[in-house]
């Protein structure tokens, strides 16, 4: 009987000695695997976020380039229009000058009218 008790005690002790490392090994490896998976998930997510930002920057570059080209075209058109208008003014000035000089030569009294009308001068 004593032998049987000793025998079972020995078996229980040995079982306990094996159970503890098995338990810690299994739980630790499970935790490591979970941590690894979490890190991989985080890494994949970060990569995705980086690619989203990169795409956004590229889209911005394209859009800015388009906007700037449109702006440049509008500015050039406005500049051209301005130069055309200035040329028209110069031509109109030359025409008016010639017409007035002809008018004043033909009718000196017309000068008096212009001086009174334009500048309010008195004879």
């Amino acid at each position, binding site marked *: 009987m004593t032998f049987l008790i000793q025998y079972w005690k020995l078996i229980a002790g040995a*079982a306990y000695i094996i*159970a503890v490392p098995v*338990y810690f090994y299994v739980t630790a490896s499970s935790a490591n695997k979970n941590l690894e998976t979490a890190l991989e*998930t985080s890494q994949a997510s970060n990569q995705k976020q980086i690619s989203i930002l990169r795409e956004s920057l590229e889209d911005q570059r394209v859009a800015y380039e388009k*906007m700037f080209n449109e702006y440049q075209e509008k500015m050039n058109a406005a500049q051209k229009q301005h130069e055309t208008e200035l040329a028209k*003014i110069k031509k109109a000035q030359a025409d008016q000058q010639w017409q*007035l*000089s002809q008018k004043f030569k033909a009718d000196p009294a017309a000068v008096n009218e*212009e001086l009174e009308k334009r500048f309010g001068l008195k004879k």
Partner: protein
Amino acid sequence: MILLLASLAFAQDYAPIKKGQPSPIDGTVLTAEAMATIIAKGDADIATCKEEAKFELKKQQIECELDTQKLEYDVESIKKTDEEILKAKQEELDKVYSLVKKQNRNLTPVWIGVGFAAGLATSYGTIYLYENLTNE
């Protein structure tokens, strides 16, 4: 004072004269061409000034349009990017949360039981083998 005002009221600004005729006033005699030049230059100066103002306004308008376009685009772009990033972060959080949830399941009794059973089986097997071998 009255005399001064009277002299100003009746002051003569110009006097038409013919060539060789003495001038009734002190001043400058201009030819018809010079007179025409002064008048036409005045008109042209006014027109140029108006045109310059119009051009400056147009330039400001174009610049303003560009700024507005840029700002509108920035707002839309930032909104879109933020939404996508938030979505990615949410996915990440969901995955990590499910892992944590999985990790938190308490399997201690199961593993202790498995370990104990394995230990028991190993020890029993060893002793059984030892007894069999010694009996022989």
